[in-house]
């Protein structure tokens, strides 16, 4: 009896250029092959691509730990590319106290307080985009809207200075590439790693943060003895690595979704209150974070199949979000779907701690567009920025037709 024989194997490399450009055919093959699949290029990995198993693995943090890294590398047996995240890549009980602090700083209640500022920034940026589209015939949905918005509002809320914020883009790209193999993408994005890391660590020092911002509140938690002072700058850095590239691409992917679904955009324009469900459905349909790993801490089972201790479990979040066993007509972008339970922001104790802020950003940008813009037209062919973990656009030429 060898249960491992029941796990099918496919010769699929999730990190090939072809699969990074268009992951959906790969997802379909994996989902159809079974609840757990081995992939030939990575013998220590099993893949979960259906919603039920991805959700189950994420919600069993005692069996499927994060402390051995949430990327391809097993930190227990291999040297990590970079020091592990002190929130994303740690387990209870250490995780719990830190998580409590971050949850409080980014809670829905806090989000209500920043809402007016975030809305005003979104409206003025959309206004500038409409003017540019009128005068130049088009905008780039990424460089003119999806990128500048989070790069302004989120570091402002953290309390970061204004200059040099483009370093956050380089840093985010590198962090998310480092969760894949040590391939060409990682090599390219980490060319300036030491310079950019030095910049970011300098900016995460307490004296360089605005008093009262999210970053300063982490230091206050250290003053109160909730976390150590050594941990504080690393958690500020976690805000910046996890909270910028993700929302940029979340907004970029939402613009892509709406530009390619004019009927859905017409509904949004008619009722700007649909901005929040429109963003939510874009998270499901075109998920920013494609994959995260867990590590089996002991011999265990997934869907009744034996998984040996120390196996890396590749959870394909974006595949779970298009699993026909979970979602009716999963490949359709439907603005009024209620996609509660999608995996784009994770689930369980490591679920995105900034999700209330992320949703606020997406909602207010789409609402500002809905009020000011009658139609979003595709003005040219988009291009992708390949990343080992993120689904990202490099350019997205759009024409905004003012209302």
């Amino acid at each position, binding site marked *: 009896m060898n249960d491992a024989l029941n796990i099918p194997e496919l010769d699929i490399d999730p990190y090939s250029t072809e699969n990074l450009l268009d992951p959906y055919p790969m997802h379909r093959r994996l989902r159809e092959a079974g609840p757990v699949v081995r992939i030939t290029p990575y013998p220590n990995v099993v893949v979960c691509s259906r919603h039920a198993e991805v959700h189950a693995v994420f919600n069993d943090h005692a069996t499927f730990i994060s402390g051995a890294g949430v990327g391809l590398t097993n930190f227990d047996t291999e040297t990590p590319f970079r020091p592990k995240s002190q929130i994303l890549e740690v387990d209870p009980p250490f995780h719990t106290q830190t998580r409590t602090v971050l949850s409080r700083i980014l809670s829905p209640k806090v989000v209500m307080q920043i809402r007016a500022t975030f809305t005003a920034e979104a409206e003025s940026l959309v206004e500038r985009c409409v003017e540019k589209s009128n005068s130049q015939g088009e905008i780039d949905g990424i460089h003119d809207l999806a990128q500048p918005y989070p790069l302004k509002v989120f570091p402002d809320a953290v309390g970061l200075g204004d200059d040099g914020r483009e370093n956050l883009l380089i840093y985010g790209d590198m962090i998310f590439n480092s969760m894949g193999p040590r391939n060409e993408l990682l090599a390219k994005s980490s060319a300036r790693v030491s310079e950019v890391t030095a910049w970011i660590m300098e900016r995460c020092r307490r004296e360089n943060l605005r008093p009262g911002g999210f970053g300063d509140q982490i230091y206050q938690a250290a003053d109160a003895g909730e976390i150590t002072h050594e941990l504080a700058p690393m958690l500020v850095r976690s805000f910046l690595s996890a909270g910028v590239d993700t929302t940029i691409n979340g907004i970029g992917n939402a613009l892509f979704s709406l530009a390619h679904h004019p009927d859905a955009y017409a509904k949004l324009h008619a009722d700007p209150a649909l901005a929040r469900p429109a963003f939510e459905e874009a998270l499901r349909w075109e998920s920013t974070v494609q994959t995260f790993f867990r590590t089996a801490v002991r011999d265990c089972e997934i869907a009744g199949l034996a998984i040996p201790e120390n196996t890396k479990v590749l959870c394909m979040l974006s595949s779970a979000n298009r699993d026909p066993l979970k979602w009716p007509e999963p490949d359709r972008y439907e603005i009024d779907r209620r996609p509660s*339970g999608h995996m784009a922001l994770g689930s369980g104790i490591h679920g995105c701690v900034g999700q209330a802020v992320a949703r606020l950003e997406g909602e207010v940008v789409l609402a500002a567009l809905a009020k000011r813009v009658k139609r979003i037209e595709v003005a040219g062919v988009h291009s992708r920025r390949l990343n080992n973990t993120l689904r990202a656009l490099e350019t997205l030429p759009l024409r905004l037709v003012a209302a």
Partner: protein
Amino acid sequence: MPDITFIHFDGTEQGLEAPAGVSVMQAATAAGVAGIVAECGGSAMCATCHVIVDEAWADKLPAPLSNELEMLECTATERQPTSRLSCQIKLTAAMQWLVVRIPERQQ
């Protein structure tokens, strides 16, 4: 598995038989119960699956954990003494005829 009743803000009652081993939130969203938004999908991260448990049931449910208590400070409709996040109430056979009320607003 238990039959549970949701009382909407306008007073209408909606009963359903919950599937095995799910949370009150999952039972509600699976049946399309309006007024349970559950944006975060059950991670106690959004406070949009807020319910007010019928007083007769208040002491019979397992007590909320600290993460739920903190999130209950963030509800859109003011928290009441028996307020819970429905994603954190895992249904058991002992919860037959559980009654919860849905607040006016979740967002």
